[in-house]
């Protein structure tokens, strides 16, 4: 009975709207990456980034399909295993990973490099879904009840911070905090946790590499060091600002084409887009991302059980924080921490993880009518 209903619901409840939104953002992303790599494309020996990004999107669609067809309640059952695998990968990175741009984030899988911290975000959301499914409570959670999940948040957090990848580590904390607050937290516990957080700041500061400390300092005063660490923020703001209302046109962004922008196909894709398409383009893109978030929120609202709600809300938090921090960074209102813009930044691990997340949302949406046993 359940099986047949499941099948029916799969066929009839594909969330086409979500698929269309995600794919349009991906297409914009590919066009944008084409422009970001255009000027010096002849210099690069390897396959251009936009071609590879198309491959990542296709692989991502496969991940999305898989995550869509396996009943999410089954996935939740395996959440601890998935979490364990991801932590194991992070440990592998810690011991065997290779270093790029001064941080050890990558694991070589023969043909391509893989960044386990990206799927870790999704694994953590699944972990929390499973945990709170098992520990339901009508009353807001007290700190004592949250000690166990917080421990399991801190394990990957520490490993990723050690790489060092401040941005991704921060995202893990922000997602978990968002989910826990959404479920409800006892006020007293909140105050204690917050003081704990404040106390931990010096500890985290100690963990940070010099360049990260410098970035945080520079953030508050970028003009102090316009050619050192403040360079990124200033060049990005100049790129965005000089785009003006209508932009400089596709492939014509001087900041982009002259490579004033660092990491312009990964963390700074938005400034490439804003420079070439102007405020009009930037506005449309941000609104498109907003529609994506609200659509995901709608799915959260209609999820049929607690694990579905937690996963969906966790993904909303994941997307929102990544978008907010990335665009905030590009626009010079947040410090430079390297995290990708969902579906727009170049990168395989991130693209596949985000696509899998979208697949999970469609999964939850499709199964919202299934009666619970």
């Amino acid at each position: 009975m359940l099986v047949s209903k499941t099948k029916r619901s799969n066929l009839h409840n594909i969330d086409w709207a979500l698929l269309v939104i995600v794919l349009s953002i991906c297409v914009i992303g590919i066009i944008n990456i084409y422009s970001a790599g255009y000027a010096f494309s002849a210099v690069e020996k390897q396959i251009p980034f936009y071609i590879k990004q198309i491959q990542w999107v296709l692989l991502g669609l496969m991940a999305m399909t898989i995550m869509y067809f396996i009943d999410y309640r089954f996935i939740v059952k395996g959440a601890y295993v998935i979490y364990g695998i991801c932590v194991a990968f992070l440990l592998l990175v810690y011991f065997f990973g290779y270093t790029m741009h001064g941080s050890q984030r990558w694991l070589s899988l023969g043909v391509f490099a893989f960044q386990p911290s990206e799927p870790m975000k999704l694994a953590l959301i699944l972990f929390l879904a499973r945990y709170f499914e098992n520990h339901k409570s009508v009353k807001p959670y007290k700190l004592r009840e949250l000690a166990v999940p917080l421990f399991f948040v801190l394990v990957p957090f520490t490993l990723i911070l050690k790489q060092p990848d401040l941005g991704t580590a921060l995202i893990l904390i922000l997602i978990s905090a968002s989910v826990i607050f959404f479920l409800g937290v006892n006020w007293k516990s909140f105050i204690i946790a917050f003081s704990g957080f404040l106390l931990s700041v010096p500890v985290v500061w100690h963990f940070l590499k010099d360049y990260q400390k410098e970035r945080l300092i520079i953030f508050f005063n970028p003009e102090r060091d316009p050619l050192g660490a403040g360079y990124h923020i200033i060049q990005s703001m100049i790129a965005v600002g000089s785009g003006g209302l209508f932009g400089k046109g596709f492939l014509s962004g001087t900041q982009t084409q002259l490579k004033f922008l660092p990491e312009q196909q990964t963390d700074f894709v938005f400034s490439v887009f804003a420079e070439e398409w102007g405020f009009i383009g930037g506005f449309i893109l941000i609104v498109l991302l907003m529609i994506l978030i609200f659509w995901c929120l709608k799915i959260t609202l209609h999820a049929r059980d607690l694990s579905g709600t937690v996963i969906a809300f966790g993904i909303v938090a994941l997307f929102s924080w990544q978008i907010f921090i990335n665009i905030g960074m590009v626009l010079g209102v947040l410090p430079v921490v390297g995290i990708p813009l969902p579906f727009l930044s170049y990168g395989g691990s991130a693209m596949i993880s985000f696509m899998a997340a979208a697949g999970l949302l469609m999964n939850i949406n499709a199964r919202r009518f299934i009666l619970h046993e």
Partner: protein
Amino acid sequence: MENRFTVLNAAETPEFRQKFKIVFAVLLIIFSLLLIRLWYLQVIKAQEMKERSESNSVRFRKIEALRGVITDRNGVVLADNLPSFDVVYMPSAAKEHERMLERLQIMYRRKNLQIDLNQQIPKDARPYLPVRLEKNVGMEKIAIVEANSVDLPGLFIDVFPVRLYPKGEITASLLGYTGEVCKDDLESGRADYALGDIAGKYGVEQVLDSYLRGRNGAELLEVNVHEKEIKNLGRIDPLPGYNVIMTIDAELQKAAWQGLAGKAGAIVALDPRDGAVLAMVSTPSFDPHLFNLGIAGAEWNKLINNPLSPMTNRVVSGQYPPGSTYKLIVAAAGLEEGIINPHTKFFCDGTFTMGSRTFRCWKKGGHGHVELHRALVESCDVYFYNVGRLLGPDKIAKYATLFGLGKASGIDFPNEKSGIVPSEQWKIARMKQPWLPGETISIAIGQGYNLLTPLQLANAYAAFSNGGTLWQPYLIQRIETIDHKPYKEFRPVKKGVLPLNKETFELLSSALWGVVNEEGGTGRAARVLQVDVCGKTGTSQVIGLPQDPRARRDKRILDIHKDHALFVAYAPAKNPEIVIAVVVENAGGGGAVAAPIARQILEAYFRKDEPKDEAAIMARRPREDIANP
């Protein structure tokens, strides 16, 4: 307590809805903040940011890597680098390109300097991508640009390495030349070239480009409004290219060049012991430095449209009928196939009749009764008409193929042609016509459809002279790092073996000795004092377009060309060290024209134990004295 999730999840629960409203509101605020910030930067601050982007004072400047040095086998430099001081313009978004050019021209005129800005600033010049206006300018112009930097914003002097070929034309068709990569190279994506990069365009420069070019570096500079450097913000050093040591002997190359002076032709000298190329000259040649400064359209057209095609290396790309030099192969085939023996005689009265056609011997009145030895020494055509008739085309083709004809030799050089070894099968495949008996007669004296390159000719004789080993000719001895550590060594490659009997070798080599040294020999002009020389002359009728028989006939009817003169020689007769093939186009008989040239080269070669001229002594220049840009 049953189904707590329903408490949390039921959309109807006011508490749950409340939470959603909060989340919704928070997200709305966050996105609004982003949009407000975007509006602030792109609309309110747009003008300021535009100005800052236009006057962006940070530049990435490419540092051209020094190309590897090419030397001959004795360390004589064949290709090196020189610094060129170029006037460079850095376009800004200000779009006052024309005004800047005008000003510069006025300043030049005041000093009575010639204005050869060979490049207009392109209309679509991208801001901050430098344009090279004038290359290799003199001190006066450098002074003008440097002294007037305030009036010439965006103009500055940049140092750029250019290629210097000390031997100029002598090695041009061998080494090729360098120039800026063209659009096709960039779009083909063959190698990782960037716009404005220098690439090898022909010859060794092209073949070994990936070794020679090194890797460009870059500099991050802060500049003032006049594009003058204020501060160096960082630098990636360029990696110089690898040095290339060739098998060429510069002196021999020069001797060969002098031998062909004023004529169109090709000379190649090989070491028969391993296939190393000692000299490779093709005339007419060109000035390889023309391309350094960006060749003007008119000059390029002149080169390309020259009927003598100076841009073609005739040694590998020129295809000629072998003429009588082919007789060695026909003789070898006759002996091996048992058609003739050393004492087989044919009567030559100056003509040979086959059906209704009459073929002539080059010697009016004929040679009388001739055996193989005299037939080769005096190059009797009638003798070989008879041998050819008895052999048939396919047997001749079989031996020609064994001698390495009809297929590319595999030398490390571009555009090598493979020549033609005609056979019955070849003719049916190529022309859809059956073989005619008369064609065999022409082939027997190397005159029919046969075509070979001078390199193939030399290599075939090299294989014969060394006792039967067919080598793959090679030009590159080794590749070294800039500090002369070996990087790659090239070993001789054996391509095949001539399965000839010892008697055949002995008989034929004594005949080739006779060609040069005996009374009546056609190649007596090639005798030198120091050693015994063996050789064979050839005189071949001109064939312009070998692939197409009709065009070929037309050419013959026109007959505006004289015969090609061929001579191929090796020496010493025992354990030869050098094989030389000489082809002089439209010059007449091989014995009269080509053999004396071969003699000059042989003399130069066997003089080698004596002290060398200063070019050889002046070994490699240290690379430090080349300005590093």
